[in-house]
């Protein structure tokens, strides 16, 4: 088994890992090992062929593969970044030993001065939501359908029902429709969609695909292959009203029922997770509780926008570079917590000496609210939706007012509509 000293190991070469590795190299890190288990860098962007990426960061509307290319192409200018594709990290320790394996190098242990976690997230499968019924072919997660159609060039079926109105489910409703698959319905357990409003418009409304809010699948029918799903409305407590159930014929059920940050490696290393995000607790530097281990992108919290992933990953890469040189300033962090209608806030600890962008996720939809930081109303929120992250940048001047734990909440605005 080969042991190797290195400066920085970045685990995952999706948008987060690519941006972090580039930022670290730009900041002068001597050697960066950038690892991905797939054969191609870019992560999930490679299968996200739809457009809408990059408006905030590049001021352009790009497809996923185009956005990825903006970060893959510059790798050539940084020979200090060694891209290891087809490589699986099987263990990470608190003292920053990264055990990786691939068919070329065999098993390699990297002893790194810093590590950046950029493993992204994964989809919740059928087992996570316990749908009764048989176990026929034809049940996919939305991301699997996306991979089949956009990377493998395969169609999953002929008639589909989509459970869950997350963004991937909505985008796949359009994609399936354009490829000639009949999408009979999109079902959402909650009384509101968890996807971006623009995706409801351009993926469902454009194609007259019905969205059933407060509905769920109560049974899957079919022996070899899905033949139908039984659907029922749900009451206030999300319990199905089985006397009102009906069947929708379909050969494919697509599940778009949420994403979970992929943190098996982190947990085994002793990285503390935030139960609200499912990702590591991080500070303004995107450093975890373990010194020298940083995290960025969807492994920290599930983002709506890749542009935000890029920004925060560049910050993590820059901070890792400072850490490696022993120049990462030790400041007393202010802890941040979520108050009224706030499910999560990232980062969970902020440095008072620099601007920090907070990513706030709401629990439930509201209109005409105000984002409150401690006792101060900071910004108006005309529309609050759990599917749409609220960004707010705290300035050092504002932060001077706060020395203790900071509560972030969504409160009643001046005008209620």
């Amino acid at each position, binding site marked *: 088994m080969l042991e190797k000293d290195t400066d920085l190991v970045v685990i995952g070469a999706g948008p987060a890992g690519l941006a972090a590795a580039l930022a670290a190299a730009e900041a002068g890190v001597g050697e960066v090992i950038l690892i991905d288990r797939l054969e191609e860098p870019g992560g999930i962007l490679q299968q996200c062929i739809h457009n809408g990426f990059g408006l905030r960061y590049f001021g352009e509307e790009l497809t996923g593969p*185009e956005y990825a290319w903006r970060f893959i192409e510059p790798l050539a200018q940084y020979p200090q970044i060694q891209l290891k594709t087809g490589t699986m990290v099987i263990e990470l320790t608190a003292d920053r030993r990264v055990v990786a394996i691939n068919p070329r190098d065999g098993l390699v242990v990297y002893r790194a001065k810093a590590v950046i976690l950029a493993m992204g997230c994964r989809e919740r499968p059928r087992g996570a939501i316990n749908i009764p019924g048989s176990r026929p072919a034809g049940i996919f997660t939305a991301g699997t359908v996306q991979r089949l159609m956009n990377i493998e060039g395969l169609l999953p079926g002929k008639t589909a029902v989509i459970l869950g109105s997350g963004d991937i489910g909505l985008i796949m409703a359009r994609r399936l429709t354009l490829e000639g698959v009949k999408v009979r319905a999109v079902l959402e357990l909650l009384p509101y969609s968890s996807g971006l409003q623009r995706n409801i418009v351009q993926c469902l409304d454009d194609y007259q695909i019905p969205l059933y809010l407060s509905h769920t699948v109560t049974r899957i029918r079919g022996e070899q292959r899905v033949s139908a799903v039984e659907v029922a409305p749900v009451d206030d407590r999300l319990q199905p009203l089985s006397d009102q159930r009906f069947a929708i014929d379909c050969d494919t059920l697509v599940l778009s029922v949420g994403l979970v940050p992929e943190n098996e490696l982190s947990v085994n290393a002793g990285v503390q997770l935030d139960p609200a995000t499912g990702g590591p607790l991080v500070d303004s530097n995107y450093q975890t509780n373990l010194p020298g281990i940083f995290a960025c992108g969807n492994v920290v919290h599930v983002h709506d926008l890749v542009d935000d992933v890029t920004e925060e990953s560049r910050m993590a890469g820059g901070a890792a570079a400072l850490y490696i040189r022993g120049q990462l300033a030790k400041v007393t962090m202010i802890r941040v917590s979520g108050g009224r209608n706030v499910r999560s806030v990232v980062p969970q600890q902020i440095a008072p000496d620099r601007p920090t962008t907070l990513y706030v996720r709401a629990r439930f939809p509201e209109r005409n609210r105000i984002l409150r930081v401690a006792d101060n109303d900071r910004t108006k929120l005309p529309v609050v939706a759990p599917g749409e992250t609220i960004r707010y940048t705290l300035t050092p001047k504002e932060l001077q007012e706060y020395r203790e734990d900071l509560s972030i909440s969504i409160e009643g605005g001046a005008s209620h509509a």
Partner: protein
Amino acid sequence: MPEMTCIVCPVGCRMTVKVTGTAVEVTGNGCRRGLEYARQEAIAPQRVLTAVVAVAGAEQPLPVKTARPIPKEKLFAAMAEVKTLRPQPPIRIGQVLKEDLAGTGVALVAAKNF
């Protein structure tokens, strides 16, 4: 007055659009692009089409997009034409694969090197 959700970017501004003859009055847009979108949407809706095409001699398909938005009612005709294409590698990102896709006057371009 009809309400409209802006689809230009993921912010998704909720806008109100009032059409009087040829004049379109928009409120609630967060930026200039939203204003342009609302005007266009009220008169003749357009969308960027993204898809994949089969590549000659390759197992995996190539992601493609229209260089600009095309009329919404042409989306399915454009898809039918996309399916007839069999580009030859090597293909460069941004390379035009078909000028004037489905009579829209808009080109179909590669979204990836292949």
